[in-house]
């Protein structure tokens, strides 16, 4: 082994220290953020949550309709339309309840064309556009009457001209991007406002839960002894009750189905898990030296709880909070779906889904939009929550 003699000189302090690869010491939050950034699904969830919030907050600003604007003539129009060119640059769309709409080539709804004659026996309706001097005959007897088997279900004929059976093309509905509902309201706008309602309920209810849970849990744990036993027995009893029923009973009890009723119902019932969690955390923390030290220094109780115990339990609290929000969205949707949600014309996602249920077979798109909104919200928060758990869980932290 050949080693140059000069290499046997002693290394300086600095040279030695340069070798020691400095592991950057990160604060808890820097470390958590670094972990969260590396968690792909969590970032997907985070972006999802941000987009949903933007959708709910900023979305309605860009829309020409409000959530209660009704245009009855434009009811039940789907998001995608097969339009037919019945005359030169004159396109029409027929809804499933036989309303004829004039559509621009790009997909904007221009006007409803009213019927002038309904021949229900032969299944031929005639619609008249007086301004343009057009009489459009809709023959929808195909596949309904004997001897009329065809590849298509209906044809158009303008002013007695040839029957048009092929759609000109399929366009997206520019006026109602997600379609319109049974009374001609924009589903997109309804879903945006629904997001406001659903998310407001979820956030506020979760915060209420959080506050009750944290206060209750930390007091029980910190006081210990008899107080703890009594408080936890109470939690035990609440925990052995099917809570959803109590949310429903509270909704019935309060009667007035406003936003706040829902928030009170959800907020007053679901804090039990949080209380248990906080109690467990505080119990294990309060035995640790830094708390003992604070006590020995005569720091008062509420200060110890709020300054020493809760900040150290914040990780699990945040995780549980991110999981609470989607479950509140879920519960709210559930309750609205069985008809106990906020009252019309306000609507949450659950209400929208409930409204769409009766027309499911004819107008499935009316259900898809709110359902998709719920599912995306749930997924985003779940992904984010999973990521946060990995990022904040002290047990996995050292790694």
């Amino acid at each position, binding site marked *: 082994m050949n080693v140059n003699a000069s290499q*046997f*000189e002693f290394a300086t302090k600095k040279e*030695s220290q340069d070798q020691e690869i400095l592991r950057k010491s990160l604060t808890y939050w820097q470390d958590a953020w670094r972990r969260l950034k590396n968690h792909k699904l969590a970032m997907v969830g985070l972006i999802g949550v941000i987009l949903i919030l933007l959708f709910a907050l900023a979305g309605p600003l860009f829309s020409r309709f409000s959530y209660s604007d009704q245009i009855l003539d434009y009811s039940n129009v789907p998001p995608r339309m097969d339009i037919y060119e019945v005359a030169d640059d004159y396109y029409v769309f027929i809804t499933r309840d036989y309303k004829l709409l004039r559509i621009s080539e790009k997909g904007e709804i221009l006007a409803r064309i009213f019927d002038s004659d309904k021949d229900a026996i032969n299944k031929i309706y005639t619609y008249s556009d007086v301004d343009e001097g057009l009489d459009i005959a809709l023959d929808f007897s195909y596949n309904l009457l004997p001897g009329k088997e065809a590849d298509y279900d209906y044809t158009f004929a303008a002013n007695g001209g040839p029957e048009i059976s092929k759609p000109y093309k399929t366009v997206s509905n520019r006026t109602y991007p997600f379609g319109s509902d049974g009374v001609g309201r924009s589903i997109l706008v309804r879903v945006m406002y629904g997001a406001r309602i659903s998310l407001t309920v979820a956030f506020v209810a979760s915060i209420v839960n959080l506050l009750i849970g944290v206060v209750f849990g930390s007091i029980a744990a910190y006081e210990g002894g008899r107080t703890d036993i009594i408080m936890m027995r109470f939690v035990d009893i609440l925990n052995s009750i099917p809570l959803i029923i109590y949310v429903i009973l509270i909704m019935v009890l309060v009667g007035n189905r406003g936003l706040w009723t829902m928030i009170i119902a959800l907020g007053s019932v679901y804090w039990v898990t949080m209380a248990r969690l906080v109690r467990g955390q505080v119990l294990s923390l309060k035995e640790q030296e830094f708390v003992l030290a604070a006590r020995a220094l005569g720091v008062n109780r509420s200060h110890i709880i709020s300054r020493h115990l809760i900040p150290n339990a914040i990780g699990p609290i945040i995780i549980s909070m991110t999981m609470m929000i989607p479950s509140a969205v879920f519960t709210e949707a559930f309750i609205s779906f069985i008809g106990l949600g906020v009252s019309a014309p306000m609507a949450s996602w659950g209400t929208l889904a409930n409204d769409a249920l009766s027309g499911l077979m004819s107008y499935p798109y009316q259900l898809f939009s709110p359902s998709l909104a719920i599912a995306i919200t749930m997924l985003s928060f779940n992904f984010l929550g999973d990521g946060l758990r990995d990022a904040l869980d002290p047990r996995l932290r050292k790694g």
Partner: protein
Amino acid sequence: MSKPLLEVKNVKTSFFSHLGEIQAVRGSSFMLNQGDVLGIVGESGSGKSVTALSVMGLIDEPGRIKEGEILFDGEDLVKKSQSELSELRGNEISMIFQDPMTSLNPVYSIENQMVEVIRRHNKGMSKKLAVARAVEMLTLVGIPEPEKRIKSYPHEFSGGMRQRVMIATALSCGPRLLIADEPTTALDVTIQAQILDLMNDLKERVNASIILITHDLGVIAEICDHIIVMYGGIIMEKGTEKDIFYNPKNPYTVGLHQSIPKGDISGDKKRLVPIEGSPPDLMHPPKGCPFSPRCPHAMKVCLEKPAPMIRLNETHTSACWLLHEGAPVVGQYKKGGEILE
């Protein structure tokens, strides 16, 4: 000299996390003869436990033995499949762990767990015989009223008693090698002494070789014939108990000695000298000697090249540049000896 029972040759074990490769053991070689007691000392992260788990074939995902051979009785364990290894484990090679509180399954009785192991390695043994064997082992490790206590569940035992149960189970199939990974660290000081006494006593009675892993030099002194000092995934110094305690030839070993309190009531108060700095990051191990950034005598070469393994006498080797002929003379680090690489 007869064939060694265990021969570990240049074993390298790494864990592959999504952040990169953690080189837990970076080339470890040693030998163990039948009946010997080998101590492995080092701080946490030195690679001592990973070395032991490598021998057991218990490196879990995402870890892997990258290189090297582990010859047990002449057969290479690295090449064996998990099911072949499981025939050996608990039978030829046993292991006990640091924390007896969590090392026994809480939902099964002691009897259930011991009998399961005994019958696993003694095909066709009746349950009755297995229970008798278990009771015999519990008696051996000093559990009072073993016939009665065997029905208990782990939570009904104290930590020391649980460690005794662990030892009894590990020895129940008459292994030729027992690996004890910090068996006393999690116990109270008085219990620690009892368990060490027990192991010392068992060493005589059951003819098993023992590898005792610890971060506590004091524990090792009592029962080990040979000692290995590990740091940063490599072996720093190897020798008999006398070599390591009275004639250490590696600055790290010296540092270890200086940093442990000597329980002299006589009043010979020596100042404790801590080793400054922190252990190396095994994801980015230093190019040279792993101890060089903390070494009081670090030379330029130490930072650049790994130190050669230098044989000082038949039993004593040390990996340190100070022992190289070119190095300046420092204190007790007398130069000379055969460079083994």
